[in-house]
């Protein structure tokens, strides 16, 4: 091949140029510690890093939620333990009060019961991170307190039954609160179905017993009046043992709308179906009514009520305290109610414990996952410094060598010898 001077020059420049650009790339990698500066450095790698980073950040978000849930649960459990201890104390006190030798000193027991009541009430109104622990999802209002004339304890917030859910993994949502309704409230739940074939104007009805703060029995009568297809008016009345209404002015009706395709309850008064409080303050009656499980179907109407507990602990303790102050012993039935609450709160404590365990297990899984993902991201985008430095050294040597050779070869021509 005929080698001309420009051939030699161009060849030299081309190769040195390639050499320098390789050198520059390694230098940038070492300086920035990143293999991928731009997506084109490794298109698949860049996409992978983005997806992995998303996974990592999402997973870290879940961990944060779990931490929040764990501390919320921790505080809730402490408060519930206080309630349980106080209830147990009351039971001991009541057992002692039955002893005839102390019959004339019942005031001391009344004080003990009152102390326990205050402790339970305090625990029930405990706040964490500016949220009332047992106020469900309406946690900015203090949930429990005395009524206006101080004769009973009632729910002050609008709804203490709400569940606070957080996401702890893909597609897994976990409740991180024990609601006030679960512990203290009486929840009357209506289940069964309404007859969709009934003519407009038909009234389907059902009734059950409810109790006031002192444990007196009343009847709750609920009427569902069909007003249009899939639409019913829910009205209710509470009557005492003599059959007379305790409502001077019965509350206005709620409108229930059912889904025409699957028959489930769609809305109450245009809002998503949820439970609401029914109360007759003059008679110290207050409970949570939950119609959300009612369905509409073509079968004949069959409705049934169920309640989680008959009476709330606050008013039972208040009644017992008042009796003791008046030198009266509580009835066996009243003591049994306290005992029932003790069982109830123990059950709830184990529910809370289960939630804690689940959160902790998930946290463990997540932190393993994060560890693995961090490793994968590092594999994809971090520079192996030792390797890069060796390569840098190598490229540098090649560059130096080609400079040296060029200084020997380039200036030579026949001119030097003639």
């Amino acid at each position, binding site marked *: *091949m*005929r*080698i*001309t*001077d*420009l*051939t030699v020059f*161009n*060849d030299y420049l*081309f190769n040195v140029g390639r050499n320098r650009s390789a050198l520059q790339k390694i230098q940038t990698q070492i300086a920035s510690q990143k293999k991928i500066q*731009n*997506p*084109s*450095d*490794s*298109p*698949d790698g*860049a*996409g*992978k*890093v*983005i*997806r992995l*980073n*998303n996974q990592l*950040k*999402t997973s*870290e*978000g879940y961990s*944060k*939620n779990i931490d*929040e*849930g764990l501390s919320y649960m921790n505080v809730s459990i402490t408060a519930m333990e206080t309630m349980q201890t106080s209830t147990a104390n009351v039971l001991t006190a009541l057992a002692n009060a039955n002893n005839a030798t102390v019959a004339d000193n019942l005031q001391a027991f009344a004080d003990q019961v009152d102390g326990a009541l205050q402790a339970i009430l305090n625990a029930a109104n405990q706040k964490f*991170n500016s*949220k009332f622990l047992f*106020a*469900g*999802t*309406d*946690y*900015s209002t203090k949930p429990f307190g005395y009524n206006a004339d101080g004769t009973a304890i009632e729910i002050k917030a*609008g*709804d203490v039954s*709400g569940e*606070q*859910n*957080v*996401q702890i993994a*893909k*597609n897994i*949502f976990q409740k*991180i609160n024990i609601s006030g309704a679960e512990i203290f409230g009486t929840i009357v739940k209506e289940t069964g179905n309404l007859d969709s074939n009934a003519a407009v104007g038909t009234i389907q009805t059902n009734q059950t017993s409810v109790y006031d703060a002192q444990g007196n029995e009343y009847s709750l009568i609920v009427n569902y009046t069909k007003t249009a297809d899939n639409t019913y008016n829910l009205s209710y009345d509470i009557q005492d043992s003599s059959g007379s209404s305790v409502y001077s002015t019965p509350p206005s009706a709620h409108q229930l709308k059912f889904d025409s395709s699957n028959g489930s309850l769609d809305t109450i008064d245009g*809002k*998503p179906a*949820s439970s609401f409080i029914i109360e007759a303050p003059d008679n110290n009656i207050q409970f949570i009514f939950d119609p959300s499980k009612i369905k509409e179907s073509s079968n004949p109407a069959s409705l049934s009520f169920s309640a989680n507990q008959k009476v709330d602990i606050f008013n039972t303790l208040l009644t017992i305290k008042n009796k003791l102050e008046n030198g009266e012993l509580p009835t066996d039935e009243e003591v049994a109610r306290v005992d029932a609450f003790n069982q109830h709160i123990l059950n709830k404590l184990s529910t809370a414990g289960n939630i804690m365990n689940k959160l902790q297990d998930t946290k463990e899984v997540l932190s393993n996952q994060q560890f693995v993902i961090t490793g994968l991201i590092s594999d994809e*985008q971090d520079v192996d410094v030792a390797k890069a430095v060796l390569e840098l050294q190598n490229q540098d040597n090649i560059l130096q060598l080609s400079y040296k050779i060029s200084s020997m070869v380039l200036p030579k*021509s*026949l*001119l030097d010898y*003639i």
Partner: protein
Amino acid sequence: MLSRIFNISTRSLDVYRKALDVTAHNISNAGNEDYTRQVADISTAFPDKMAGFIWGAGVKMDNIQRVRNQFIDNQLRESTQDNSFQNKKSILLGRVEQIFTEPSQFGLSELLTSFFNSWGELAVSPNSTALRENVIAKAQNISTRVETIHKNLETAKREVFDEFNSKIDTLNIELSKIHELNVKIAQQVEAGFQPNDLLDKRDAMIDKVTNLVDAQVSFDDNGSANISIGGVLAADIAQSVEFKVTAANGKLNLSTTGNHLLQQIKGGEMGALADVYTNNIPGYLDKLDTIINTVFNSVNDIHSTGYTIDEPPQTGIDFFSSYENGVLKINKEILDDPNKIAVSADGTSGNGDLALQISDINNQPLINGNTIIESYSSLITKAGNDKATADNLSTSTELVLQQLKQQRSSYSGVSLDEEMANVIKFQRSYDASAKLISVADEMIQTLLQMV
């Protein structure tokens, strides 16, 4: 007969002086890339026939030849088109891929992830104003980033258009110069000259044109270069055509001043500009819009069913108010009052069920079976792949081009060693011819002295 020696010697002196001139011309152009080495064609002069013998008449110079290989030239032109197309595309796409600033913590992917995470955090304490403000701030981050990416892509597109436009001016000038040179070369050839340096000049211009577009080059019998671009004759001996830019239906191309649209140009730098303008940038913008529209719709669909924490709670409020031309707007009511963020499913202020649903959008396969982030990451992979492919092709075509250039330079380039050897060769011949004259002179002197 002595005059014969004089004749032969004088002719030879003349030929070798001319040959030295050619060598000098070569040497002085040794550093000129466009230069083609010239060779003095020397042959024996036509012999005399006398007294029964054929007498050699010495040397004569036939021609000054340009050493050029048409085959390498053709290959080189094609290879130049390919290389300048890929090289330009690689430069343009390099600029485009940087607009996304990925992968880094400033990229849209991180912002989208933290946006969805912020909803998950809000679900823990739905009535916290701080967390609500946080959601708004994350949404604003997305909105700013998307707007920047959009604006930068649009700017890049406009710059590509401007560059294409200015390349047309260069193209038009080169074409008209080629036409002028065609005329001049024809004149000289007609007058019996060999216009080597003009041919070099024209070749350099043709190289410039093929660097710009995928032009077809052919030479006719009288040595004129005919250039055609996109099915239209662009320059020959009779004329040169002026082109202008057309951008119709999102496509960038050339048309004649008479509005005749050319076949889509596909090679050279202008081909790359047209390709990036027509295909790459709009493709990225489309994908980005799909992703942001999905975010816009999926967040709004859930948000509008939720309740605010106002008294009384309101529903039917959208989180984003509009997404147009890359501007993602957050509902002004929410910007003014974070309590208007509606994540409560039932109207109680502590219910955050809808925040959970919005946060979970991040996990939903919403775009052709891919999640939002997966879809975005495939956009980045595509942008990266486009650039990496152009890079690879640019490198490989450059190697081919480099090799062809070496071949051309090996064939047509000036070698100083060779020229210096020629100098000595021609100088010696010149010396010897001069010596002959003095020998002939001595012979005449000798004769004269005899008289």
